[in-house]
């Protein structure tokens, strides 16, 4: 074997590399945990665990430089190290079988986490008692929905991710006879009636609710119980030139409509929606407390699950530790609001959900087996030693 290849192989199969990678991953997890205090759990996941490198801004500049390996890099190297070690260093012997099992379980676990990171999608379904919905909403992302309501029978929706409104540019869509030009964007904001702020600067908006409102920028929040409320000013331009400027915001719960070339459009900024091929109706939400206290004892939502083709139509009780799994999605009871009138279900799509179960069994068995071998060996040595001394 050529010396270069040999030293390369030695590097990737070495236990030293394993130990270094394990230490790096421990430091990464530790720092990421501390950073949750500042960034909240979502931003931390992106920064530390769903990245090749942890980036940090050079002070005084906008330049981001890698300062630490991210979880994808460490995890990837660990996988490589493990695979290489098993290919070249380990023999598949009876006494090492526990290690094989454990390591194979670990590979599955790491892969499962990678797939989860790539494919998992989480959203919320807020249901008032009696209401029916066929979509759930993202709790981080928002979108600008342009809804063509001309036809009474259906709405034609064009959804534009809010991220596209952050920088000036031109947004076009084949279905829309106009272009959208972002003017101003606040990632988090507050809206106040103009009458309450007499000396505010004039609004960039001249259409819809905008002129009566003053938008105030707010600091971006990372707290888990708070949401960012973006506001944008957008200018619409048709073939004949400028149509007007609107203020859109997730703080506005009513759509703003206008007509153009005989068609009626509505503008609405809202949480990004995920549509599902079935609908859920909240029949009853219950919330029990322990007697004489406010400690919640149980939350449960009795729902009706239906598909448009009528093949599925059943009632399901979703409660703590007992989610509904249907259509590749998991619905679990996440919360409630409006004095127990609204139930909040969390909707998770995670195609690789089964992998951790398999790996748990493999690793548990592997460790028990491996340490069992150690233990019986130890006991046998002791008894022989005891017999020898006796």
């Amino acid at each position, binding site marked *: 074997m050529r010396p270069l290849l040999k030293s390369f192989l030695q590097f990737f199969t070495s*236990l030293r590399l*394993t130990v270094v990678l*394990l230490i790096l991953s421990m430091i990464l997890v530790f720092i990421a945990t501390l950073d949750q205090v500042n960034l909240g759990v979502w931003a931390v996941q992106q920064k530390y665990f769903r990245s090749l490198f942890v980036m940090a801004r050079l002070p005084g500049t906008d330049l981001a430089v890698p300062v630490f390996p991210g979880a994808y890099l460490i995890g990837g190297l660990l996988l490589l190290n493990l695979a290489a070690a098993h290919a070249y260093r380990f023999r598949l012997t009876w006494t090492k079988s526990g290690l094989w099992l454990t390591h194979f379980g670990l590979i599955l676990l790491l892969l499962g986490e990678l797939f989860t990171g790539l494919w998992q999608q989480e959203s919320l379904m807020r249901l008032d008692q009696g209401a029916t919905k066929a979509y759930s909403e993202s709790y981080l992302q928002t979108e600008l929905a342009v809804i063509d309501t001309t036809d009474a029978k259906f709405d034609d929706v064009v959804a534009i991710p809010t991220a596209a409104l952050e920088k000036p540019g031109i947004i076009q869509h084949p279905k829309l006879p106009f272009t959208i030009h972002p003017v101003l964007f606040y990632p988090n904001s507050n809206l106040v009636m103009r009458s309450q702020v007499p000396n505010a600067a004039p609004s960039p908006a001249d259409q819809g609710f905008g002129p009566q409102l003053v938008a105030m920028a707010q600091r971006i929040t990372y707290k888990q119980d708070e949401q960012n409320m973006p506001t944008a000013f957008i200018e619409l331009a048709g073939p004949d030139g400028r149509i007007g400027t609107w203020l859109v915001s997730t703080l506005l719960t009513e759509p703003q409509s206008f007509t153009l070339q005989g068609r009626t459009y509505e503008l609405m900024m809202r949480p990004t929606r995920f549509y599902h091929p079935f609908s859920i109706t909240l029949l009853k939400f219950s919330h029990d407390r*322990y007697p*004489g206290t406010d400690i*919640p004892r149980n939350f449960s939502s009795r729902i009706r699950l239906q598909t448009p083709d009528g093949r599925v139509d059943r009632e399901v009780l979703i409660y703590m530790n007992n989610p509904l799994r249907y259509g590749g999605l998991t619905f679990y009871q996440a919360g409630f609001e409006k004095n127990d009138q609204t139930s909040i279900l969390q909707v998770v799509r995670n195609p690789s959900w089964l992998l951790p179960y398999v790996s748990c069994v493999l*690793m548990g068995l592997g*460790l028990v087996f491996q340490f069992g071998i*150690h233990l019986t060996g*130890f006991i046998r040595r002791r008894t022989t030693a005891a017999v020898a001394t006796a």
Partner: protein
Amino acid sequence: MKKLLPFLVLLLGVVYLGSTLAPPANQTEFDLSGFARLPVLVDGRIKPLDTVARTSLLVLQGRQRFVAPNGVSLQPVEWLLDVFFNPAVADDYQHFLIENPEVLAIFGREQGNQKRFSFNELRGGLSELERQMRLADPVDEPVRTPFQREVAKLYQRVVLYQRLKQSVNLEDSPDFFADLQRFQNLLPAGIAAVRAKEAGQPYNEQDYKAVMDFASRFQFMSESGYLLVIPPEAGNPDVTAWKKTGDALMGTFRRGEVNLDVLVYAALGRAWRLKQPRDFNDGVKAYGTQLVRQFKPQLLKCSIEAGFNQAQPFYSSMVLYVLAFLLAVISWLKWPETLQRSAFWLLALAFAGATAGILTRMWLEGRPPVTNLYSSAVFVGWVAVALCLVLERLYKNAIGAVAGGMIGFGTLLIAHHLSLSGDTMEMMRAVLDSNFWLATHVVVITMGYGSTFLAGFLAIIYIFRGALTKSLTKETADALTRMVYGIVCFATLFSLVGTVLGGIWADQSWGRFWGWDPKENGALIIVLWNAIILHCRWGGLVKQRGLMMLAVFGNIVTSWSWFGVNMLGVGLHSYGFMQAAFYWLIAFVASQVLIIGLAALPRGRWRSFQTQSA
């Protein structure tokens, strides 16, 4: 004689444990233990008044022992009786713990020897306390200043005391029983007057006023009372439908007569106040017999719980752990075999006491052993000591007994401090309410904590004996190495399986295996650290001393995962403030770093191994 010593030690230990089961000394003629066992419903569960008295005392004054102004020690339930039925006397009881000098200044006092104050001593400053509380209220808990924190704490203490006073009797009524009789007699005329007034007909002004006066006082009682004292009426299938005294009295207007149980308590109060033990004891007995019909299982639990409170098995275990530790350490200097055996048996006895305590708690709660931070501390110690007993049985070198005594005592001490916040058998919030996962994930992960700590403490013994004494022979050193290695293997297994089980629980209830939340990360770090130790060992990257240093660092990792992550919001968010527990954590981490530093001394500086190599 020397041969008999282990047996004698064990016998003395058993006698000591047995003596804790004896009923407490009762200097009065009142049936205090009977009263202590009476059930009430509070914080979501039916518990004996004894528990109410003890947890209230812990919350108010940081300890269960209470000394009256005349120097006499009172049983907790005696104190509670005075709070219920003799508030004028109780107002002079010094049971409000104030340690913060700024809070003392609210009451125009300076820090001196006195740490506990009576309601009457605080009376003058209560309106200022309330004003300060209003100022502190809008501030989020983690960012409050120490002063605001202490104000909130004292305010809650005063509120708890006031609510206790209104739970059974009306505080403003000198003779509540007589008051209730007057009310009962007035009732027909009073109700007639109210009805007449509502119908716009002429009515008796005096009766109307008197009955409305009662109603407003009962309403106040219902709003301010704390305990649900009055059991559901016979025939009510819901055994948890207990009521506050005030609510039961408000119900009188509907029923037409005063609830009998309210009258029973009022009569007990009168007997207590007028020092008539015979009436009191008859009342307690009659009430108990009547309750048995409807609440037999609950009464049994209450009576066992009161006995459990009284026996304090964890406290006795703590004492025995210390003794076992001392005997084991001395065995390294003198009488190795005799004292080692004595220490082993004492450790086993302490373990038995702790086991009995854990089992009793499990039965009372109907839950697996670990349900909150308090019980995790108890259980971490229990697991470590169980492993120590096995080690001691195998190696017979007192190392297991030293480690077991140390960890057993330490964890129970931590548990004691965690118990100061009130009742440790609290109800489980909805998301945690799953006995299956509590029994698997939580128990296994806590076993991981316990065994990681044990490996660390065994390593500390190695380092101390090796670096500071000449007693660490090659044989002992090798034995310790095998122990640490074996325990780390155990720890890896438990923490890994426990962590993954936690992920599976999360997937079962939330559809998400791993959320990178601080507690999950803490568990993951322990797994990673144990894996690092094992791989270092297998790769020959560390020898004996290196293994010991890594194992001691495991103590830091585990303590951070166990407690540190819970303090994240506290330690980092706030400015200039850290909880006392945070200081303890820092101190513990610092001590472990020092020990690692000690181990890192060049081998020439170690007192052992001067001749042979290790």
